[in-house]
C-alpha cells in the first residue's frame, strides 16, 4: 500500500473530457496499473494493467485459479494489494479501506450469489449504503430494483436463505445496483445459473452500462461475458496475456488458447 504514494502527482491526468461528464450519468474511469495482489505471503496477481471506461463493459476471462477473483477483491480492497496506480475517476482507491471504496463508487458482486440468508430480501436491499446522487441525478432506489426484478418484489418479505440460486443472484445484482456504483464488478455472475436467468441479468447489466456505469466482470464460462462485454482481457497466472475487443475474443482459436484446460 505504501508504494501508492508515487501515484499522487499523476492523478489529474485521469480526468475524463468535460463534455462526457455532463452527458453520461456516472463518468468515472477505472485505471489499474501494475497491480499486485497477495493472499498472505503468496502473490496471486502480478503487475496487472487494465482500465474500464464509463459505460464500458469489460470481461476478464481465464482458467480457474488464474487470479480473476483476487484481482476483483484487490480492487474492492478485500485482499491486500499494491499498485502503481489504482484510481476511479481520478480518486486514488489504493489506500481506502474496502467500505470507503464502496462509497467512492466501487461495487463488487462476489461469486456464489452471496446474500445475507438470515435477512429478508427487503432488508438485504435496504441495508446498502447508497452512493446517493452520485450518478448525476440518476439514483437507483430499492423500488427501482424491484421494478427491474419483479420476482424479488414478490419475495420481498421472505428470508434470502429461501431463494433459489437464480433469485439469489438477482438479489446480489439488485444489491449492487442500489449501491449506485460508478464501477460495477461481478465475479462469475453466470456461475451455476439457468440460461434464462443469465439472459435477464445480461439485459440489466447492459442497461446499467447504458447509464454510464463501468462494468468489470470475470468469467470462467465466456457465454455471458462475450454477450455483454465490449472488451476482453485474458489472464493467466495472475498476469494479463491478451487484450482486445469482444468480437476478436470470440474467435475460437483465441478462446481455446486461453480458456481450454
Amino acid at each position, binding site marked *: 500500500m505504501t508504494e501508492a504514494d508515487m501515484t499522487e502527482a499523476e492523478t489529474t491526468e485521469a480526468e475524463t473530457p468535460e463534455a462526457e461528464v455532463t452527458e453520461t450519468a456516472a463518468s468515472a474511469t477505472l485505471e489499474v496499473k501494475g497491480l499486485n495482489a497477495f493472499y498472505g505471503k503468496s502473490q496471486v496477481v502480478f503487475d496487472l494493467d487494465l482500465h474500464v471506461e464509463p459505460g464500458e463493459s469489460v470481461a476478464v476471462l481465464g482458467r480457474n485459479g488464474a487470479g480473476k477473483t483476487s484481482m476483483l477483491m484487490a480492487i474492492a480492497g478485500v485482499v491486500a494489494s499494491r499498485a502503481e496506480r489504482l484510481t476511479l475517476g481520478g480518486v486514488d482507491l489504493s489506500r481506502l479501506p474496502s467500505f470507503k471504496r464502496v462509497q467512492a463508487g466501487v461495487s463488487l458482486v*462476489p461469486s456464489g450469489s452471496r446474500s445475507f440468508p438470515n*435477512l429478508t430480501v427487503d432488508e438485504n436491499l*435496504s441495508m*446498502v*449504503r447508497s452512493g446517493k446522487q452520485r450518478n448525476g441525478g440518476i439514483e437507483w432506489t430499492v423500488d427501482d430494483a424491484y421494478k427491474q426484478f419483479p420476482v424479488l418484489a414478490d419475495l420481498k418479505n421472505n428470508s434470502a436463505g429461501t431463494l433459489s440460486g437464480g433469485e439469489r443472484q438477482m438479489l446480489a445484482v439488485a444489491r449492487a445496483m442500489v449501491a449506485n456504483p460508478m464501477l460495477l464488478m461481478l465475479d462469475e455472475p453466470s456461475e451455476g445459473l439457468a440460461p434464462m436467468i443469465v439472459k435477464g441479468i445480461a439485459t440489466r447489466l447492459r442497461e446499467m452500462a447504458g447509464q454510464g456505469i463501468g462494468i468489470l466482470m470475470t468469467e470462467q464460462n465466456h457465454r455471458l461475458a462475450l454477450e455483454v462485454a465490449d472488451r476482453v482481457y485474458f489472464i493467466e497466472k495472475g498476469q494479463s496475456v491478451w487484450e482486445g475487443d469482444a468480437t476478436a475474443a470470440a474467435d475460437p482459436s483465441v478462446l481455446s488458447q486461453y480458456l481450454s484446460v
Partner: protein
Amino acid sequence: MSLGISLTQYVIQIITGLGEGAVLFLVASGLTLIFGALRVINFAHGSLFLLGAYITASIADKWAFANWNFWLLILIGGIALAAASIPLEVFFFRPIYNRALLTQLLVTFAFVLVITGVVREVWGNDGRAITQPPFLKGNVDILEGGVRKVEFFFMALAIIVGILLWAMLYKTGLGRMIRAAVSDPELLGLTGVNIKILFTGVFVLGVLFAGIAGGAVSLRGFIVPGMAIDAIIKAFVIVVIGGLGSLGGAFIAAMLVGVASAIGILWVPPAAIAIVFAVLVAVLVLRPQGIMGTRGN
C-alpha cells in the same frame, strides 16, 4: 415427593431458578451477541460481568441504592464497564477475530485471569455485602415458603432487556447490520459498512449487558469473585443450548438452565452443575444445532 422434598420446596426452587435464569439470560445475551457477530468466544465475558457487579457496588457505596435510583446506578455501572471495554476490543479482541480458536481461547482466558485478579486485588477475596434498595428487601410469600423479591425484579428486567434487544436487532438499521454481520461480515463490508466500528459497537453492547447483569446481581445484597466462573460456564451452556447467536434460544435456554440448577441444588447440592450439563447433553442429542439454532451455523 421423592427424596422427602415437599411441593412447596419445588415451587420455590423453580421460581428462584427462573430468577437466576433471568440473570443468566442477561449475561448470555451479551455473549451470544458477541459470538454471533464477531465469531469470537469470549471467555472473559463472565469476568466482565463480575467487574460490572463490583463497579456498581462501589457506585452504590457512594450513593446508596434507594428505591428511586437503583436502576440508574445499575445503568451507570453498565455504561462505565462498557466504556472501559472499548480499548479491550480495539487492542486485544480486534486482532484475534480471524484467528484460530485456540488463540482466541488463550487471549480471552488471559483476561479472565487479569480481570478476576484485579477484582480480588481491589475489592478483596471474601465478597461483600451491599445494602439493597428497601422495596427489594425480603421475600414474597408463596405456599408455606418465600422467594426473594429481587428474583422477580430479575425476571422483569430480563423481559424488558430481551424485548429492547429484540427490537434493536429486528427493527433498527443497526440491528439489521448486526444480523448481516452474523451471516457474512465480508459481504457486509462490500456493501459499504465499516465493519471495524460496527464490531466495536457490538462488543461494547455485549459488555453493557454483562455490566447490567452484574449490577442487577448486586441487588441480591451479596457478591463474591467466584460468580465469574459460575456465570461464564452457565452462559456458555445457554448459548450452546439456545443455538449459537440466537436471542430467543438464549432466553429459553437460560430459564432451562436456571431452573435445572435450582432443582439440582435441591437434590444434590454439590453436583448442581452436573444437572446443567445433563440438560446440555440432552438438548444436543435431540437438537444438535440448539433450540433455535439453524443447521450449518
